[in-house]
């Protein structure tokens, strides 16, 4: 295809691309910095010599990380969490979005149900009631404490609900005339037609589960049960000096190793990096599709 571009248009396009390149650079530079930090020697890292290229290239920190039992264990827990959590999320999202995508004449209290869900998006009980609930229901210190509280991602439900509503109603009617029930319609027609939207919400769920750390710290009673991000959070945060005992300083001398931390951060980011390219082609497509209705 050939466009005839006016001069002003060309200028705009150039400026636009330059701007977008700048933004993507901003996103990618910290990442490259961490990568080169993880590949540098620790003296170079402590001296702040490492910018965007490794100084005194070494893979020592990766060897350390791969031999570190705690790290690998936390990694394994995170994988479990992502698989389990995402499956629960998707199942519930689909099961909730389908009936709510129906017209009021099919589901009489539809609006009320929707508000019931939206409500939880706007208000929450706060940390303490949540903690007490988890404690009372006996989920404390189990992997379910990380999955059940966020089992229904409302944002994803709304996204999928709108997508379902965008599907032609005639399909639904035709299937009913042929004698299909709701379940059959949902699994044989709606779900296969919504792969793009499902990929999007799956990605949201996965990234959400992989990245969340606070619930791990609060609901897990021992570090052996920490998912990866909670574990990472404990090693990279700044120490609060007010609680530092003299002996702690000696310990810090031994452990304050930035290259190791950088390597752990990088390894932790890898899985999501690998998943993104495969799901991203659905991604933009998926979000936008539900937004336009005929």
């Amino acid at each position, binding site marked *: 295809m050939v466009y005839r571009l006016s001069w002003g248009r060309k200028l705009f396009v150039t400026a636009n691309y330059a701007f977008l390149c700048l933004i993507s650079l901003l996103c990618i530079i910290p990442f490259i910095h961490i990568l080169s930090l993880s590949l540098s020697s620790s003296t170079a890292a402590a001296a*702040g010599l490492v910018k965007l290229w490794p100084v005194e290239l070494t893979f020592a920190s990766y060897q350390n990380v791969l031999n570190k039992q705690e790290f690998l264990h936390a990694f394994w827990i995170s994988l479990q969490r992502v698989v389990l959590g995402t499956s629960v999320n998707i199942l519930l999202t689909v099961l909730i979005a389908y009936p709510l995508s129906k017209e009021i004449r099919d589901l009489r209290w539809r609006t009320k149900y929707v508000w019931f869900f939206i409500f939880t998006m706007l208000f929450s009980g706060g940390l303490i009631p949540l903690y*007490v609930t988890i404690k009372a229901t006996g989920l404390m210190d189990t992997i379910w404490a990380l999955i059940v509280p966020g089992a229904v991602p409302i944002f994803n439900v709304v996204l999928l609900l709108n997508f379902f509503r965008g599907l032609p109603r005639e399909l639904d009617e035709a299937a009913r005339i042929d004698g299909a029930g709701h379940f059959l319609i949902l699994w044989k027609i709606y779900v296969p037609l919504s792969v793009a939207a499902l990929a999007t919400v799956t990605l949201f769920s996965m990234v959400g589960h992989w990245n969340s750390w606070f619930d791990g710290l609060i609901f897990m009673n021992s570090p052996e049960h920490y998912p990866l991000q909670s574990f990472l959070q404990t090693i990279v945060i700044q120490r609060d000096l007010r609680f530092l005992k003299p002996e702690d300083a000696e310990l810090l001398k031994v452990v304050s190793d930035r290259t190791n931390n950088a390597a752990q951060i990088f390894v932790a980011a890898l899985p999501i990096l690998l998943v993104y390219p495969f799901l991203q082609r659905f991604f933009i497509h998926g979000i936008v599709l539900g937004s336009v209705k005929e």
Partner: protein
Amino acid sequence: MNRQNRNKVAVVMIAAALLLSACGKGNDSAAGNVSAASGKPAQTSQDPKAKFEPPIDFTIAGTTEPNLAFDKGESFTNNTVYDAYVKDLGISIKPEWMVDPKQYPEKVRLSIVSGEIPDLMKVTAADLQQLVDNNLLADLTDVYDKYATPETKKFMSTDGGNQLASAKFDGKLMAIPSTNAPYNAAEFLWVRKDWMKKLNLPEPKTMQDVLKISEAFTNQDPDGNGKKDSFGFAAQKEIFNMVYGFTGIFNGYHAYPGAWIKDSSGKLVYGSVQPEIKNALKTLQDMYKAGQIDPEFFVKDHTKETELVAGNKIGMAFGPFFLGSWPLSAAVVKNNTVTQDWETYPLASFDDKPASTQVGLGVDGYYVVSKKSKHPEAAIKILNKWIEVDNTTDKQVGKPYHFSKTNQEYWKLNPIIVVPQDLNVKTGAVLSKAVETKDPTLVKDDLAGSSLYDDSMKFLKGDTGSWSSWMKAKPHGTLEIMNQYLKENRYMFDEFSGAPTATMAMKKPILDQKEQELFTKIITNKAPVDDFDAFVKDWNSLGGEQITKEVNDWYAKK
């Protein structure tokens, strides 16, 4: 949104409000249940050293150390330290939960409101007050009397009983203070001696000397690279932090930010709003304007600023005695060579009155025992044990409680850790002499002293890993100066050591933030020094006056 929907929103809002208030009530009743369900502790043998037979379970709340490497098959919940407690005391330690130090206070609070606190945990002074008010704690007065060994009692009141007194409420001992030597908070002036020699500068005896050195370090190219890229002082965004903070400058002008000090009439006043502060701010502003402080310091933390030290760009810093261990050692010791020659000095004063270094009570928390605990005396026995094993010169006795088979720092795992109230300061009186004359007999009864002595000898033989110990032990090292401060009566104690008062708990965080903001602005020359006067007025009207009154009421009752 149509009318119908709007009504629904209203309904939802009201429902939310109801729900929230219901939650609040739930918490109260949970706390009530706990206090109701208290029982009398079971009596065991009166001998403080007796073992529990059969072993009892004792739950604790622990902090984790993510960098601790465990031996094979061991973990935070199952390790040789806990085995030692079972073997020696018959106490099986069960962490109810563990979390990293940063999240610990949050999790303690959650634990308290959910009504289930472990037998033993460490809390802040504010939490202690709350727990006592809600009657959730065991009264330790009797068990401490009965079960604490004479050594323990002596250990806990080396300071004359100040720290122990801070855990007493109406004469009842409600907690075990996590003791530490208050003198460990002393600040020192760290200076690059190699630069001083190169530029032919006098030793920093007065504030005027310090300012001169700072000026020379900035302008006379001490690192000799032909560029004007060095700074007089290290600095970081928290201007009153122990490490790279400016408290040393303030103390040099007899200003004590953040501390409650006695004024001439004997009343307590708040250090941050006294007129002396202004002089220090003026000096810092001048230094900043002259380029003697890193212009980006207000966005940097220790780690970032240490990069400058490693890059030979910093000539002086304020810091505590352990600055040589962390963060300096990473910057100074490179590839087994000591690359920078640092020297330590006492704080310098701007007039003929020597500068005092400001310190607090030295208690960094309180170990509390739950009222529901069946064996509150177990906490005292653990305390006895820790004091015994941490202060013996017999390495065989101490080892199981301190190190793993591969010498990892297992001491972190002990449920109660208390530090001698005169740690280091006592050692400082003799250690430097012992090192100078190479005479280990001077420190043979002093555990910390003899280990520092050994390290120093190793350093002299070329072990650069012991550089940080050398900085403490050497003649004119930090421990000697720490002792010198004591002899010359140069410790300025924060007179307020109670739990935060009502107004303090509510308003002080905001006031502190305002203070930090304004002081940083003044130092970086974004606000004139005279803004300090307006700040003092604001501080008083925004709750400071009330806080001062409450602090003085507390002081009068003490």
